[in-house]
């Protein structure tokens, strides 16, 4: 599948934003965050801004962005529609959370309840996003049981990393707990990603050229002539291929930059305390998001679609 910039930005940026919002709601309810109104409102608005950037970016790839409002109408059947609705609904408790924190205080019942509601909506939006991919049967790398835990744990990891950076900017040395959570989720996210890569490498194709053409009874099938001599929409959009050696190099980069580097930076930050926190934790957050961008690019580039079978392509990466 074509790694389209706007869709990759959507899932990366909104993942960070919703992950951060979820942690803000949960950790505030547990009274583990700084209670200053400035911190609360700035952090909530920052998280919302990231997810908004993601949502706006996703409209860039539409043929008719001005009709985007129509996409909330089919919630009965379409996960894309449900994602849009969840994303819009999330603004209500999230903005209410910010208002309650500012006017009434972080520890008030209103702030706690609205914060928890915002957390549920944020993770619900990420889950709807995952369902869009999971329900696409022709793409085995997406119609996959590991996609949901991957997207959720990656959102929680990047969200926690950015929240740790935000806390340390407000209160140097006060971010040990959030940084520890981020490091733990970093390890979990790395493990989830490795499990996903193992799974997609080992899984068999969902269909063959023989079942696609129904000619298997005659024996092995191969394409003699393509219907057209130039690339068409189908091959550009769904026939994107990536060389195996490039993919494995990019996997190493994603793992090193997106998981190992941030976890190490977080651990060093936790060990060394206040002095270097303000440099190390934002660096960890930045590295995580860069690595996840590469990881998300691969999520698209490595995905294969059954339509390419009609063009004589086997479901495997080019060596």
């Amino acid at each position, binding site marked *: 599948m074509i790694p389209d910039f706007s869709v990759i930005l959507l899932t990366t940026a909104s993942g960070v934003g919703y992950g951060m919002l979820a942690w803000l709601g949960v950790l505030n309810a547990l009274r583990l965050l700084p209670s200053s109104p400035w911190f609360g409102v700035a952090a909530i608005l920052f998280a919302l801004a990231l997810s908004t950037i993601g949502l706006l970016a996703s409209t860039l790839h539409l*043929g008719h962005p001005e009709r985007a409002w129509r996409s909330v109408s*089919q919630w009965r059947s379409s996960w894309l529609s449900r994602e849009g609705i969840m994303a819009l609904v999330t603004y209500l408790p999230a903005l209410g959370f910010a208002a309650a924190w500012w006017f009434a205080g972080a520890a008030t019942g209103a702030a706690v309840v609205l914060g928890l509601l915002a957390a549920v909506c944020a993770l619900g939006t990420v889950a709807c996003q995952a369902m869009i991919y999971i329900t696409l049967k022709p*793409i085995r790398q997406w119609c996959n049981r590991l996609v949901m835990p991957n997207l959720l744990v990656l959102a929680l990891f990047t969200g926690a990393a950015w929240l740790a950076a935000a806390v340390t900017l407000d209160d140097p040395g006060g971010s040990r707990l959030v940084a520890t959570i981020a490091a733990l989720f970093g390890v979990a996210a790395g493990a989830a990603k490795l499990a996903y890569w193992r799974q997609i490498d080992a899984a068999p194709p969902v269909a063959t050229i023989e079942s696609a053409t129904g000619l298997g009874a005659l*024996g092995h099938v191969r394409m*003699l002539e393509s*219907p057209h001599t130039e690339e068409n929409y189908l091959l550009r959009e769904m026939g994107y291929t990536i060389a195996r050696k490039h993919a494995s190099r990019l996997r190493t980069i994603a793992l090193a930059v997106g998981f190992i580097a941030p976890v190490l930076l977080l651990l060093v930050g936790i060990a060394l305390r206040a002095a270097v926190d303000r440099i190390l934790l934002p660096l960890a957050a930045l590295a995580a998001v860069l690595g996840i961008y590469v990881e998300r690019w691969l999520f698209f580039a490595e995905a294969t679609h059954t339509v390419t079978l009609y063009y004589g392509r086997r479901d495997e990466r080019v060596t």
Partner: protein
Amino acid sequence: MTSIPTPGAKRLGLVIDLDTCVGCHACAVNCKEWNTSGHAAPLTDFNPYQDHPDGVWLNRVHTYEAGTGPNSRTVHFPRSCLHCEDPPCVTVCPTGASYKRAEDGIVLVNAEICIGCKLCSWACPYGAREFDQDQGVMRKCTLCIDRIYNENLPKQERVPACVATCPARARHFGDLGDPDSAVSQLVAERGGFDLMPEMGCKPVNKYLPPRRRAMAAPPVEAPRAASGAGASVLRWIDRVLSR
């Protein structure tokens, strides 16, 4: 509404005979011709007469070789929308632009409300949908809805453009929901099959397999070793001529 309607009795579709298709691409060309000014119009082309032509086609003809050795077959294979009973391209649509008609099972796109998110083309295992880069909306086979119900056309012409034009009569149009219709009979008689049944889309369109050959291809004879006086004369002639 992108929920699938309760299936009606009528299921209009195509039956494509892979035995008689000669791969002339007339169906693809006539489809383009009719639909670029019909219900699905326009079917945009970029650089049609220059380098790297590109554009929307609702029907594409592939050619495959099936089997190996002397009994292998060349099979021409037209590929278009199968108007599935369980179309994933419809349920994923966030706007309701992609829909299946309850009355005859035809799957259509309402270009007036399509936002061009392309998700339906990702959901289709068969590559039946092509995006119109110029108009920003998705295009697909309409089963020539503007021909089959068109009372301005003579009755015998009220069939999809691809069916009307096929010189080999490899394409048949009819109601596959009616077990007594000519197309259903043809499918039963010839063992018509679904493409990629493992995807669970339950295609309405059926394909008829190439018929078994009445005569097996003769084995290729091994060259016989020549001997005798005649053979040495021939060898001499061969040597002279090869100089």
